[in-house]
């Protein structure tokens, strides 16, 4: 039954849609996006705060981020080698990734519902255990970028311009490496802030501290590598001759990695990304 429901469509005459290559990721992404309706409504009704923000802001951020993450992967999945997503081993793997994503969201939302910390919560052995398990799940869900990145990299028949092909594959691989570096370090700290804020000044909407180091900033940049570098690849292909285009993608990738590493080092040193003036 599931085999039939999620079998990739092999009609090559039609333009590939979001649901064709990785329907499980696309469907889950869509459903998580739709689940924003009740949580946004809950935020409007609920006045409880956690660390100075509405309790529902964090689940909402996670919902937006994971929707974008899954839909991006589902979009890029059309350039995976033909037949890869139909393989039993891959289906098992992608099922585990989706399970990890849903578990992560359920945990963050449940914690919001009860007004307790979902991350960095080591108050009881049970909470400590769950926090450790969530770390494992986070690595699992992020690993999809590495798996897809390598598979797209090694696929000679994507039909993409070389520079664009490179930018997508490289972006996915770097997203995994950099996110793991930043988020892994963040998890080993007592909280996402490095330093003690006095006034509580933050960047609007995103909520990063403007007084002390905030590890969520480099995490944001590291994970959005999967969007930034392909956009650069698209521009390079449009504006530059072929050989220069690939070179430009490499150069931009190095530049972005340097920027992310710098913002990472800055946050670790207790410096805000956008200081107060």
């Amino acid at each position, binding site marked *: 039954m599931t085999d039939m429901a999620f079998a990739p469509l092999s009609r090559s005459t039609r333009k590939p849609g979001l649901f064709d290559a990785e329907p499980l990721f696309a469907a889950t992404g869509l459903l998580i996006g739709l689940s924003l309706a*009740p949580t946004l409504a*809950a935020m409007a009704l609920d006045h409880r705060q956690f660390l100075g923000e509405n309790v529902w802001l964090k689940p909402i951020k996670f919902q937006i981020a994971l929707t974008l993450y899954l839909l991006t992967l589902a979009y890029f999945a059309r350039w995976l080698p033909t037949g890869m997503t139909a393989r039993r081993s891959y289906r098992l793997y992608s099922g585990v990734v989706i399970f990890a994503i849903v578990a992560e969201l359920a945990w963050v939302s449940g914690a*919001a519902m009860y007004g307790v910390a979902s991350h960095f919560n080591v108050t009881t052995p049970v909470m400590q255990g769950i926090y450790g398990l969530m770390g494992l799940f986070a690595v699992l869900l992020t690993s999809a970028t590495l798996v897809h990145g390598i598979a797209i990299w090694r696929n000679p028949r994507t039909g993409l311009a070389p520079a664009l092909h490179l930018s997508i594959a490289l972006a996915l691989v770097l997203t995994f490496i950099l996110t793991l570096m930043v988020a892994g370090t963040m998890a080993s700290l007592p909280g996402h802030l490095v330093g003690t804020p006095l006034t509580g000044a933050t960047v609007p909407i995103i909520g990063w501290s403007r007084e002390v180091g905030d590890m969520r900033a480099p995490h944001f940049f590291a994970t959005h590598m999967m969007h930034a570098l392909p956009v650069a690849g698209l521009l390079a292909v449009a504006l530059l001759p072929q050989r220069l285009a690939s070179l430009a993608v490499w150069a931009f990738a190095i530049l972005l990695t340097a920027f992310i590493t710098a913002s990472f080092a800055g946050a670790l040193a207790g410096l805000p990304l956008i200081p107060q003036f």
Partner: protein
Amino acid sequence: MQSDTLFQLSGPLAMLGWLALAASPLAPRLTQLAASLVIPVILSLGYTALILANWSGAEGGFSSLPDVMLLFTNPAVALAGWLHYLAFDLFVGAWEVRTARSASIPHLLVLPCLALTFLFGPIGLLAFLGLRLVHGRFATQTTKGAA
């Protein structure tokens, strides 16, 4: 938003669905869209948001009658319970209209069942199930007699 405001909004919304069901022979598809999808979805979203926001702060539970009664002393949870009634009753009403239509039960006979479902949910459901049972028998007998 205050619970009172939500309560005052939810009544007319459900009423709209019921009026549409009463007049459903005029526009069967539109009625079904409103009464079995759009309005129940809006009410269900309201319910979900209320439960997400207030469940952890409410006393009581489902395990005993005093627990359930204690649960409904929380205004937000009581409102959620009310939205639950409104959403599910309307959904059942839409099902009755749909079922009656496919079984060729005259709408005039369904109207009293709708009124009962609107006011006392389960009583209306029982009435409609009874109507369907009886109507089916009559139809079979008539067909046999004609053949």
